[in-house]
């Protein structure tokens, strides 16, 4: 196993997630695409951790922190989407033009 193959999977997943964040209209699917990007970052962190054979396992620890923060992000994100949906009867990000001049 080479390190590059894992990092390339990570960057491919990141690019896919980026495409989703830009093109999806539904706010829930935008959040799902963000999750794909975070998974890509985790793959990179754990792969580099295995490559360095770090006794402090810093890559794995930071992957765990990212998982915890992603869970918090999804919780808040879904709550915001629900509130917007309740007020505007829509969960599409391009219809949220309240702050557009």
């Amino acid at each position, binding site marked *: *196993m*080479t*390190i*590059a*193959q*894992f*990092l*390339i*999977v990570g*960057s*491919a997943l990141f*690019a*896919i*997630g980026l*495409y*989703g964040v*830009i*093109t*999806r*209209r*539904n706010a*829930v*699917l935008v*959040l*799902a*695409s963000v*999750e*794909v990007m975070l*998974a890509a970052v*985790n*793959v990179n962190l*754990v*792969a580099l*951790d*295995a*490559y360095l054979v770090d006794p*402090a396992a810093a890559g*794995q*620890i930071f*992957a*765990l922190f990212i*998982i*915890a*923060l*992603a*869970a*918090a*992000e*999804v*919780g*808040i994100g*879904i*709550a*915001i*989407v*629900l509130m917007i*949906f309740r007020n505007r*009867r*829509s*969960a599409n990000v391009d219809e949220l033009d309240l702050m557009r001049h």
Partner: protein
Amino acid sequence: MTLADWLREVANWVFLVIAVPTLIGGFKVVTTSNIVRAVLYLVVTLAGTAALFLVLGAEFVAWTVVLVYIGAVIILFLIGIMITRAPLTAEASLSHPRNVQVPAALLSVVIFAVTAYAFIDAFEAAAIPVPEDATRAGVIAEIIFSRFVIPFEVVSFVLLAALIGGIAIARKDDPGEEAA
């Protein structure tokens, strides 16, 4: 190292069996026109990353992904979809039209090409030592509660704040609340 050499290693076949469905699932998450299926493909992608973590010997991280992501986050997504999907919304309107998709695809391909080139250029064929043994949860725990104890406490505080914030945002504003 040639491709034939690369394919001679058994671990690389395991890697391919995991990585290809992971990427296909990720692609389906961002392209499929059925919102529930998109979230279910996210399960495939996350399970694939968990399997990659197992290949890399990061056992605790892998099971945390299974528990937190596939167990909890996916359920949140499904509940979010159930509540917000307006019955009038056509399935085709889940994504922006083509004039957004084409530049987004170009941008993604460019970013993938640049980062993949940088990785190959920097690491070439540097090998990951195949882990003899998985990193044990006890080792992870010792590190978290010694070197990373303050970040750990900060993360737990963030989770508490997110919990309270989520409740405060999502709960219905009762008009009679102030009078009561």
